[in-house]
């Protein structure tokens, strides 16, 4: 407020404010100025209001342009010339209809503070929930990790072993074939395949025999101990 004091046109404004609040005597600006110790100030632009020779357009004549008959121009006239412009001050404010429109627009586009705070709270809650769910998922998966790592490693080892076994088996068969036929046989040829089938049959027979023997031994073993124990 004090900064207003120093300049001519803002001093006018200050006096008007003082005037309205008191609505009787206008306090002189000096009474406030005396307390200040201003060393420098700015020079405001002079306000050329042109009160002596105002141009107030004739509303009824046809020669005046349309834009000088609008409500906006009327307000500007009032702003420049005051009551000398001959405009009813009541028209400066929006009419009831316009006011309704304004209120509806404001309610739509500018929700009150409580509504906004609620929306913000909801959004924050959703965000934190999402984040927590994600972190939970990550934690659960990380807990599973050692087991998964061990499984994978085991799988890899087994696969490697299998490959090795396969290779060994193949070399053995090739060696067998080499012995039998006397020359290097192509593993894809039908001879080789026949040989492989024969070997497999022999192995199966051997296994069966082994199984029978094991069973007999087991049966014999089961029968023998009871008589000795009793």
């Amino acid at each position: 407020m004090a900064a207003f004091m120093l300049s001519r046109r803002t001093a006018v404004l200050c006096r008007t404010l003082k005037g309205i609040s008191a609505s009787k005597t206008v306090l002189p600006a000096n009474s406030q100025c005396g307390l200040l110790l201003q060393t420098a100030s700015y020079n405001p632009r002079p306000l050329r209001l042109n009160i002596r020779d105002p141009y107030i357009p004739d509303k009824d004549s046809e020669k005046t342009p349309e834009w000088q008959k609008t409500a906006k121009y009327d307000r500007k006239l009032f702003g420049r010339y005051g009551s000398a412009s001959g405009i009813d001050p009541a028209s400066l404010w929006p009419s009831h209809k316009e006011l309704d429109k304004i209120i509806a627009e404001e309610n739509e586009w500018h929700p009150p503070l409580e509504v906004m705070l609620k929306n913000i709270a909801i959004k924050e809650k959703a965000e934190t929930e999402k984040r927590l769910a994600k972190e939970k998922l990550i934690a659960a998966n990380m807990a599973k990790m050692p087991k998964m790592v061990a499984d994978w490693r085991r799988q890899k080892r087994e696969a490697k072993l299998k490959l090795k076994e396969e290779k060994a088996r193949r070399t053995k068969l090739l060696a067998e074939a080499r012995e039998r036929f006397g020359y290097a046989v192509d593993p894809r040829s039908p001879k080789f395949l026949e040989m492989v089938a024969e070997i497999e049959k022999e192995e199966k027979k051997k296994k069966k025999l082994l199984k029978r023997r094991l069973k007999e031994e087991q049966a014999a073993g089961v029968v023998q101990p009871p008589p000795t124990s009793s």
Partner: protein
Amino acid sequence: MSFPKKPGGKATDILQNLPRITLANLRPEPGSKKLWKRLLASHGGNRSGRGHKGERQRGNRPRLGFVGGSTPFYLAIPKYGYNEGHSCRPQYQPLSLKRLQYLIDLGRVDPTQPIDLTQLVNARGVTVQPLKRDYGVQLVDEGADIFAAKINIEVQRASEGAIAAIERNGGVVTTSFYDPISLGILIKPVPFFLRGQPIPRRMLPGEDMVPYYTNAENRGYLADPEKIQQARLALAQKYGYILPDISKDELYHMLSMRKDVRQIFFGLAPGWVVNMTEKKILKPTDEKLLKYYSS
């Protein structure tokens, strides 16, 4: 008897006795500045390095970035990431504490009254352009160590160091929001009053800015006053100064002056029409209008 030799010797004597360095004593290293060679015939002449005919020689080349008519590269590539939406982002003109102290010292800004954006613009301390997505002024902590003024200042954004520096000196900071129309009215009040419109209500900030202005750490105007007091104490502890008690201050009434949430000017309520020529304020009497403007 051998005197101990002073270190440096003649060089230090010369340095101490030479006059102070000014622009008049300085000269560039010989050979560092090559003179501009004029194009005066033989190989500098004929076409003078401009090429043969065409826009090149005649100096009519199009602007930088023009690619003959198709959409240029700098327009065809869309913005994303860091630069996306940069033209829609709110901007705040920085105001350093150094500049504020300078303005106060020169008497352009009055510290015995609340300092508002209007005061700063009147003092020509800052220039705000609401049409360039400026939403106001932000306090920056440059000059926090030399700041020594007790003020009641209202800005749109403030850094923590700036708030600490002001409160350390017994002042008060508030951050408040002005929507673009209110900002335009705030920085140029007199042209607004000449328009003859009633003072509008200040709108509330958007949802993205409400958390900032309801936070006591930022001294937001929508925050709880008790929380602001707690935040003042916490900040004093953090920055290591004793918080002066402003309630015992002689200027306590001025320091506690705060604008209403919907108010643009101190002492003027929304809905009033200020007339400069007749030095009058007109207030509405209709109930509906009063209800709207005071809600």
